[in-house]
């Protein structure tokens, strides 16, 4: 049986149990849209590999090894999905579908590099590269920078092409370095420095621009 399918089971069990407790065979069958019999079949295989513990009538729980593998898959899925959406500008639906396939083939190394491009400020306890990468790298929206931070613009993300054009024309272009000078008022515009000029952007425009913190 394909690895992809086994990994899908691990992910489903993780989703139901959230790392603790047990999942019922019927619940897994419903989520996977397969018969209870084929679920039981697969659970035996996973138990043999030491990824889950299977107890009749009680259901299944993930072993330590199984939990780590499942979390790693989940994180790869999230990284792939955000990469597709943020960097390649895909819509959520198709990004999710593609990420469902990518999670199985993505190497740890590629996932780490993708993570670096998108930044990972939203993700907690990422299994792929661990917590230290979150501190080093964070591709974040301009309005979430703090004063004195420096970043290189990675991309602009907004459905409104007028706003993108406006930002491009005043110089918020990927590849340029920008630093945050001042937040003015609560939720008010923020002053950024780019090259030799100071430019104020309101929160809405600033949230369109993504930077990798340097």
């Amino acid at each position, binding site marked *: 049986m394909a690895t992809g399918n086994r990994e899908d089971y691990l992910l489903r069990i993780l989703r139901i149990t959230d790392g603790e407790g047990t999942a019922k065979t019927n619940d897994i069958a419903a989520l996977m849209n397969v018969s209870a019999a084929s679920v039981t079949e697969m659970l035996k295989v996973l138990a043999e590999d030491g990824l889950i513990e299977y107890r009749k009538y009680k259901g299944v729980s993930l072993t330590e090894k199984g939990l780590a593998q499942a979390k790693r898959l989940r994180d790869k899925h999230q990284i792939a999905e955000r990469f597709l959406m943020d960097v390649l*500008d895909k819509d959520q639906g198709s990004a999710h579908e593609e990420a469902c396939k990518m999670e199985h083939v993505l190497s740890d190394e590629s996932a780490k590099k993708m993570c670096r491009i998108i930044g990972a400020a939203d993700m907690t306890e990422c299994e792929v590269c661990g917590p230290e990468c979150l501190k080093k790298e964070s591709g974040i929206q301009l309005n979430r920078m703090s004063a004195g931070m420096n970043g290189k613009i990675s991309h602009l993300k907004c459905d409104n092409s007028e*706003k*993108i054009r*406006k930002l*491009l024309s005043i110089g918020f*272009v990927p590849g340029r370095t920008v630093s945050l000078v001042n937040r003015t008022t*609560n939720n008010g515009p923020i*002053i950024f420095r780019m090259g030799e000029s100071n430019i*104020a*952007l309101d929160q809405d425009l600033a949230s369109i621009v993504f930077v990798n913190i340097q």
Partner: protein
Amino acid sequence: MDEIRVTLVGQPNAGKSSLFTRMTGVGVIISNYAGTTVEFEEATVTRNGVNVHVHDLPGTYALSGNSDDERMVMDALVNDPGDVVVVVADASNIEGSIVLCFEVIELGLPTILALNKMDLAMKRFDTDLSLLSRILKIPVVPVSARSALGVDALMDEIISFKKRTAAFNVRYDSHTEEYIEELTSIGTIAGLDPRGVAVKLLEADEFISSLASDEERETAERMAAEFERSHGESINVHIARDRYGQAGIVKNEVQKKTARELTFSEKLSDMTTAPATGIPILIGVLFLTFLTFIGVSNFLEGLIHDAYVSAVGDSLRDIGERIGGDLGAAVMEGINGSILAILTIVVPFIMLFYVLLGILEDSGYLPRAVVLLDRTMHSLGLHGGAFIPMMVGLGCNVPAIMATRVIASKRERIIISTMIAMAVPCSAQLAIILGATGKYAGIAAAFSIFMLLLAMIFVIGILMNRWMKFEPTSLAMEMPDLSAPSMKNVIFKTWNRCKDFFILAFPLLVAGSIILEVLLFYGALDAMVGPFSFITGTLLGLPPIVIIAFVFGILRKEMALAMLMVLAAPITLADFMTPDQFLVFGVVMALYVPCLATVAVLWREFGAKNTVLISGTSLIAALMIGAGFNAILSLI
């Protein structure tokens, strides 16, 4: 005689207008923030037997945006670029201007780069101008519009300009280059360089696309869509990325930062926008400006009044009496009153206001106020950008309504213009509020009028915000460096903005007051103002003759007060009306219909319906609130 036509383009606040003034000697209004020039300026100057026509365009950050200003600049560059395009750049901030230069060159336009504010830049950078010229393959001229340095050299360069065959070309990534090659084979537009046209088509530039054939447009759209699919980034972003990438390389090659410490103005600049200090500084600046205005205007008014009376006294009247008897005396009385009125209204109030506004404008502080007030303005359906037109509106409503052109949203423009026309007092109205109400009914009465106007602004904003369909807008504004205002420029601007009062308002006032004095002399005036006494008397509790002031107030606001002074003579204004009456008069005049010039500009910008609506509402509001004040005051 030879003719050369020059077009100035450049990023906002690069100093195009100052350079324009230096080149042509024609004065235009210059301020230290983006968006001062909202219309074309044109002037001709003769040099070495050549007529040079200089065209100043509004500032634009790039040619790839889609704002009104950018479209206007593209239109001018495509249809009427003249013989030479001068890209004006701030020499301390050349990266963005190099990008603009790339775009102008790319369109195949004959280009000269003028590095302005060179004197300031020399303190911060070592710039290798000849290297820059060799890289871009266009002439590069250092200038300083402030000290006139290099302006002659620029004019000579323009006159002797010969287009060079191969100027710098931005290299885009290979995919984009393939598209460009394919598109250039289709043809060109308006005699522009096919390469530049191809890039603009790929960027879906509205102006160029509208000139292209359906086939060209569709091909370019298909390419852009294909690019986005395969690169996951819009082609606009990618093109901009390549331009800025190369501009950055050019900049680093030609310009080296000299080591230096932060100047005092840079430290102060950060403080003006920092969370802890920004708002207190804003309140301090506005309060200080207001106090200075009240204090100094009051002092100046007394000084000028006394000086005039002691110097001239009754001499004009006596001369009139000797020439034309009693009628002559009455005519000269009118002229005397007019001179005194203009002197005591225009100089202490209106000119003083413009001096203060000029200082604020040139200091570069106003954009900071815009940023700090952005959130507050949102509750009125506006953004911080509305602050500058409102400040300008305290001087005169006409340029203020013109200044709203920098605001992209039509909805916001109407809301701001309504506020300006109805509730922002112009300098003439300030003169009435302070010079009539404040002087004769006390400063508290004047203050209550200001509070009333402030409340009106909020009422207008909240109501219009609710009635008009919401359009989200966004604020992106460059913060210019703070700088010490040049007194020369402030005085020049003040004179430019005030000369109408002397050359337009004064003759009108003289003519009007002579007619009035004659009518008074023959006792005809009372009969004429009588029929309106239900407004002045019954409704507002004012002397019937005040209707004359109201009528002249439609022409120009300062005429209302000036007429009141002429009408009151020989008794002083203090004996002419009671303090309560001065308060009611001030309220009515502060809210009154916009003057003719404002009506004209409203009409041009927003059409007849909006103009009638705004003017009608102001008149009704003025009379009703004035009547309300009168009713309450007569109860007390």
